[in-house]
């Protein structure tokens, strides 16, 4: 097997290992701040996976929206709602064993189905830049969901502002 087939596989293996390790830190860490930073790392690795699959615009969008937007808000809320230096008590509730078993069952079911149906499909195309195609798609065939999503964002904005207002102080 030559270098051109080996290199994507090695890169994918490294990224997949890192992603699974970071995801495990997210769900098992005692400090919620560390979980958030691990989640940020995991989102960055997912952006790398998108770039590996040739989706360059979506990868940059993932970094911009998730890492540069959502995770910053989440870190803000964590920093504003924790007693900063409290070394935390345990973070898992009483039903963690059943949760783990259910998650294991779902994962195994999915993996078995995917191996059965989608084995052996390879990609042979050269990656092309996708920005123009995505622009044409969003404003062409997908224009109705595009406008609907902008209304959803407006509703989310109004909702967030409303919940964030503090009614105890005079405005």
């Amino acid at each position: 097997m030559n270098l051109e087939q080996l290199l994507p596989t090695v890169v994918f293996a490294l990224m997949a290992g890192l992603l699974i390790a970071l995801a495990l830190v997210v769900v098992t860490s005692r400090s919620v701040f560390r979980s958030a930073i691990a989640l940020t790392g995991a989102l960055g690795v997912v952006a790398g996976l998108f770039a590996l699959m040739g989706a360059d615009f979506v990868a940059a969008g993932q970094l911009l929206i998730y890492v540069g937007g959502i995770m910053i808000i989440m870190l803000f809320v964590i920093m504003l709602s924790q007693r900063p230096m409290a070394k935390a008590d345990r973070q898992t509730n009483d039903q963690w064993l059943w949760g783990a078993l259910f998650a294991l069952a779902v994962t195994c079911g999915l993996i078995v189905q995917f191996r059965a149906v989608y084995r052996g499909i390879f990609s042979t195309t050269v990656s092309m830049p996708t920005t123009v195609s995505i622009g044409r798609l969003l404003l062409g065939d997908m224009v109705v969901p595009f406008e609907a999503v902008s209304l959803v964002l407006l509703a989310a904005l109004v909702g967030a502002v409303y919940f964030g207002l503090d009614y105890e102080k005079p405005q």
Partner: protein
Amino acid sequence: MTLSLHHFLMLSAILFGIGIYGVLSRRNILGILMSIELMFNAANINLIAFNHFLYPNQVWGQGFAIFVMTLAAAEAVVGLSLVLAIYRNIKSVYTEKLNILHG
């Protein structure tokens, strides 16, 4: 072992499972929200992988993934402002304290 579709699908299945475990077993509301974000990302990996391997000439999967990202952002924002409102009221972010409507 050339890179194939089912490698990416297995990765996203494992990520989805880890997210489910996080949602079902974390006490901290913020931990639950973070596990939901993991599940969203697993779905996004699936969408982009199907687009890349089965339909390389079109970008429907990537467009759909952008919508998923946007809606995840909207949901995270509303969820986090709710968490702030809850924290202001009961001074805690653990789920077992949220039982005022219980019984």
